[in-house]
């Protein structure tokens, strides 16, 4: 019966649903983007390699000011002694620099690293070779280019063996990384690796920014971290160090992205609320328009409840159909965004259940007042309406 009334007023029903459709679709789309981004970041952090420990000065915390690193290569040697295996330790000293080749230039992140980087992190080369131990020991001016840098400087030539300048200093390209893609809008292929010793000379510094350690197994990772932190604290009294695992990084990032997703969902929820107000409005109009119908139904024996339930069902049906349509629209759009744009989007069952539940609830909440009004109409007055 409720369905009949909606069908009879197709255009108006559709327009009313539009608010709910847009609301639900935006909830689904925004939550999908939030979830997709979170999943992508998680994959990337896990893709760095397993059982990683990142050792940095200061405390890893949201909003903590980055500390100036007091670490040097001597500290790296100390860490290697704690770990007992040089191949498990990587370092970085990074800075932005302009890289040139021929007439072309690209501003990218230049990282000074050890030859161990591909073993500690999972990095693959597309061509050429990576840095060697002797490159590091002799501060050789050789460089491995990220895919984006290689494309920018050598769009139609093989970069391997060619000269570039980094901040005005000549380097020779010995390899090119396989592409990694984007992360949170940041191009991860926009980097250049050079020996840490060469980078220190380039920047005129002794420091290293951070040390990464690949623990032999998951069980002893925390204990290893504690020992490294203790050793560094001993060498630099008064400075705090932290060793964080991938799980901890994921936890922090997850918190940030969770808040982000929540904010997006809340914004979308507001549009759903606006849609609900529209439903309430249209139901009040409907009650007024169908006053004589209500009077007649009461005359033939409809109780106030029967009338109220009928209008409530109509409101819920309206928002539910709108909700389902919005879900379909949202899923379709999210899949398109994921496929056609660099923005990742992932559909989760809970966001669909939430969107549908909320739209049905919106129908109940915003249908109650019109339904009560309809149920309470005086049948004699109602029959005389118009």
């Amino acid at each position, binding site marked *: 019966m409720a369905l009949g009334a909606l069908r009879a007023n197709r255009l108006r029903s559709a327009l009313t649903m539009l608010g709910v459709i847009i609301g639900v679709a935006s909830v689904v789309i925004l939550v999908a983007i939030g979830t997709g981004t979170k999943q992508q970041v998680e994959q990337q952090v896990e893709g760095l390699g397993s059982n990683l420990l990142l050792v940095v000065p200061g405390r890893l915390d949201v909003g903590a000011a980055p500390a100036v690193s007091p670490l040097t290569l001597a500290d790296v040697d100390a860490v290697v002694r704690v770990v007992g295996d040089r191949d498990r330790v990587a370092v970085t000293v990074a800075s932005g620099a302009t890289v040139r080749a021929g007439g072309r230039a690209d501003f990218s992140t230049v990282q000074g690293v050890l030859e161990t980087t591909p073993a500690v992190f999972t990095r693959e080369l597309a061509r050429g070779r990576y840095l060697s131990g002797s490159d590091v020991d002799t501060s050789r001016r050789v460089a491995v280019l990220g895919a984006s840098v290689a494309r920018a400087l050598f769009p139609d030539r093989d970069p391997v063996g060619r000269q570039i300048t980094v901040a005005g200093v000549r380097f020779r390209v010995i390899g090119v990384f396989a592409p990694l893609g984007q992360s949170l809008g940041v191009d991860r292929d926009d980097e250049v690796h050079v020996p840490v010793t060469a980078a220190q000379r380039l920047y005129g510094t002794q420091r290293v920014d951070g040390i990464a350690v690949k623990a032999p197994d998951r069980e002893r990772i925390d204990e290893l971290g504690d020992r490294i932190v203790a050793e560094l604290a001993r060498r630099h009294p008064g400075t705090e160090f932290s060793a964080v695992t991938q799980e901890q990084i994921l936890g922090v990032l997850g918190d940030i992205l969770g808040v982000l997703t929540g904010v997006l969902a809340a914004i979308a929820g507001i549009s759903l609320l606006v849609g609900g107000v529209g439903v309430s409005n249209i139901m009040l109009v409907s009650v007024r328009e169908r006053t004589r119908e209500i009077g*007649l139904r009461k005359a033939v024996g409809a109780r106030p409840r029967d009338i109220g339930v009928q209008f409530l069902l109509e409101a819920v049906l309206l928002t539910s159909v709108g909700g389902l349509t919005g879900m379909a629209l949202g899923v379709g759009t999210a899949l398109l965004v994921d496929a056609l744009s660099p923005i990742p989007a992932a559909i989760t069952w809970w966001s669909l259940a939430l969107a549908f539940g909320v739209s049905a609830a919106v129908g109940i909440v915003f249908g109650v007042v019109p339904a009560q009004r309809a149920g309470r109409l005086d*049948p004699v007055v109602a*029959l005389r309406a118009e």
Partner: protein
Amino acid sequence: MSAAPAIEATDVSRTYQLDGVSVPALRGVSLTVAPGDYVALVGPSGSGKSTLMHLLGGLDRPTGGRLAIGGREVSSLSAAELAALRNRTIGFVFQAFHLLPRTSAVENVALPLVYRGVGARQRRERAAAMLDRVGLGHRLNHRPNQLSGGEQQRVAIARALVTDPAVLLADEPTGNLDSATGAAVLELLERLNAASGVALVLVTHDHEVAARARRRIAMRDGVVAADSAAPAGERHADAPAAAERPVELHDRPASGGADRPDTLVPAPSAEPRSASGSGPGHPPGGSGGATGATGRLPRPADDRGAAS
């Protein structure tokens, strides 16, 4: 003494509040509607006929006096109980038909059964059977806007009777119809009253129709000005308020006592109600009802013609 009255009103009043002003529409009306009765309610516009009909049907509540429908005192019932009582006991026919638009005839007729909890298939069967009885068996799936005025009112009559009520309340049912069609609708109502034993209370401005009724009640200024049943007293001797009221017909000069010879209408009297078949002497009406009715009208009209 006859069977318990279907409706019993005792000194009933109804006062409307209009912008803080009290408008007394009914001022102490007493009457009973017996099972199977045929009551014509006449009176000038604004005399309170519709107000009384709403009260008799439990669509409204009196502001004073006592009113029992189907033996139940209205003032003691909740809105929901009153709705259920309407559904069981009363059938309404309105001047404006009040059919649901965009809804088929059979669904319109089935509507009261929805609120009685009857299943969809049985609803449809009973509604179709009822439409057949009012001569619209071939119009089941027509929408109101695909039906003539007379057909729409017959759908409304079928809807009023589908629950097999004790009383059919028809407030100027022919007011929106041309005279020939109106006559056919009236003939149908009278035939159903005679056949099924449903009591018929009919608001009409047509003196001839009023004269055909078993009983005639004239309203004026919110009171009963005349009740043709009162002087005879045989049916409602147990209703003192009605019995003692002096008879003065305001809109018909004819004497009240001679007003109800039993020969005028085949008497269903107080026989047990039977919902089956059509009335004695009246062939089941088909679509031919409309033409048949005009042929039938003159007979009672001739009787009255001499008096007026």
